[in-house]
């Protein structure tokens, strides 16, 4: 990890000196050993604060949206999942490729500072495993799929076992059981929208959930409005979710959001596949459900 950090720093220093970037997005260290957080270096002087360690889990690609209207050239460090987020944002025409300098890092799997923080803060029982983060244990793409330079040795996928195991279990439930499961789960949602804010696929300028005229989704925290929020969000993810798992990771009430997203990945694959979102950037390419094709199945109509 130290070696990777040094290489990232070298690259950042070079890019700043050559004037290739105005901002360099990576991570830095907080006070506690497990606190690694997003960091934007703005000059050579900031480069020393950059770190890449076992807690550099935060997907920085969504943060690019803060700069989508600007002119700044941005250097960004991406792991496998983050790089798919970058592809998502490029494919959705939210950023120009030539404004980015992408430093790819082959990811050995990360730990989650939020889990560690919760465990040590005293706010939760130490009931979450502190090893490799849940989202990384489901990772199929540890190596960056888009980059200008790459650091580290290629990693094998971290996913062990069946990718859709939990989805299958859910599909095997009866309709009533499934409804109860989701109704119970969504009843705990506090509507903080962290899942939306952290998501690189949630890049609409005006989100449907913020619209007032008409107000598509009510603001009450009850099962109707909560379910509406999650259903609408899920549909917007169909064929677009790049499976970085950030939504589920940041959720303060632990809603298993990736279960929904993975169900959609499975369905899109079965209906329109094979298709994996954000695996390759090709100018003009669109996700499955953003394309009209007369041969698409319509048996659900």
């Amino acid at each position, binding site marked *: 990890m130290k070696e990777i950090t040094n290489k990232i720093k070298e690259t950042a220093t070079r890019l700043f000196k050559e004037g290739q970037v105005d901002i360099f997005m990576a991570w830095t260290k907080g006070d506690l050993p497990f*606190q690694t*957080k997003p960091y934007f270096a703005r000059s050579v002087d900031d480069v020393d604060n950059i770190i890449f360690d076992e807690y550099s889990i935060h997907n920085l690609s969504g943060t690019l949206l803060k700069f989508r209207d600007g002119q700044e050239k941005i250097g960004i460090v991406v792991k496998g999942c983050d790089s798919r987020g970058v592809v998502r944002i490029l494919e959705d025409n939210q950023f120009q490729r030539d404004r980015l300098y992408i430093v790819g890092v082959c990811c050995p799997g990360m730990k989650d500072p939020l889990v560690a923080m919760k465990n*040590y803060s005293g706010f939760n029982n130490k009931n979450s495993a502190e090893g490799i983060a849940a989202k990384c244990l489901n990772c199929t793409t540890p190596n960056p799929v888009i980059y200008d330079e790459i650091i580290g040795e290629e990693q094998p996928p971290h996913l062990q076992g069946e990718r859709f195991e939990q989805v299958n279990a859910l599909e095997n439930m009866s309709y009533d059981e499934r409804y109860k499961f989701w109704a119970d789960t969504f009843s705990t949602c506090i509507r903080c929208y962290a899942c939306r804010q952290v998501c690189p696929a949630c890049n609409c300028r005006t989100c449907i959930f913020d619209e007032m005229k008409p107000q598509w989704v009510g603001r009450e925290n009850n099962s109707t409005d909560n379910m509406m929020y999650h259903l609408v969000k899920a549909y917007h993810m169909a064929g677009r979710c790049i499976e970085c798992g950030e939504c589920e990771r940041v959720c303060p009430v632990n809603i298993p959001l990736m279960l929904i997203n993975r169900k959609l990945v499975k369905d899109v694959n079965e209906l329109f596949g094979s298709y994996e979102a954000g695996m390759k950037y090709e100018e003009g390419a669109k996700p499955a459900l953003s394309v009209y094709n007369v041969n698409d199945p319509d048996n659900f109509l």
Partner: protein
Amino acid sequence: MKILSKTRLENVFNKLNETAEVFVPMQRGEQSGFYPWQTFAAGSDKLWLEALNVYLPPKNVVFPQTERMYNIKQEGQDVKIDETYEDSKSRVIFGARACDVKGITCMDDVFLTRGYEDSFYKARRQATTIIANACYAPGIACFCSAMGVKYVDPEGADIIIRDIGDGYVWETITEKGEMLTARIADLLEEREVTLPEPKPFQQDVNYDGVAEKLKGMFEHPLWDKLSQTCQNCGICTYVCPSCYCFDIQVKMYGNEGYRFRCWDSCMYEEYTREAGGGNPRPASKERFRNRFLHKLEFFKERYGHPLCTGCGRCTVVCPAGISIVKIIDAVKEADTDA
């Protein structure tokens, strides 16, 4: 001293539950928060009074996330308002920490003082008895003392309990507390015990002079720097024991409907959106700045104390690792001569 043995806790909850909804700290699945005792499920829930604190504060007991206010019916040219939902059902918050009790007293300032009384809040608040659980061992994220909170002697509580291992010292503070104590008096025992020695805080925070210094820092470049990684989700505001912003909205079905209020967050774009479409806080910098100025400056100017109670929750849950402690430090260190 009056002592409540831990073996009798459930008896107390059951007794109180006969006449009030009793909110106790629990670990429920992956979450922890204050949930009604009557919903306690022995298999999946864990009563958790020993916790440093639970994840979700008890503010929803007096200020629910969604609260119906009244029903509306349109009849020709008239609008009929048929019912108000002021809720004065008895409630007990059992085992709130000093920081969370302070959060509620901050809301008291807002909703009950300065010549304006919020009748919905007042109804709930008056019917709520608070039993605070004194802290003796602050956690890694705690800094309540720096924000003027007395963690060993929680202010604003009706009763204070102090953990002595096998039981709690039961100290009744207010008249409301007396009434509650009377109901469970036969479950308390009398014995002399030595109270634990409070442990020191694990982080140093110095808020002195911060509110005053912030007055001249609205345009300071530090806000650009501090806010840049903020993702503008509402976690910090919704897990905060003192954040009280709300919105009032209407749901109509044809000629009938209802008006309700629900928590809002200054982190959301919609929060400051104006009727004409303009927005004085268009991006994360402005929203972020407002949140911390409100917490650390504006509230103190108006009510004499900050709106942060030092519980540390926001610093634990922020996905971007933003910490109000670091912001206080940064303000202290900031160069304001320029």
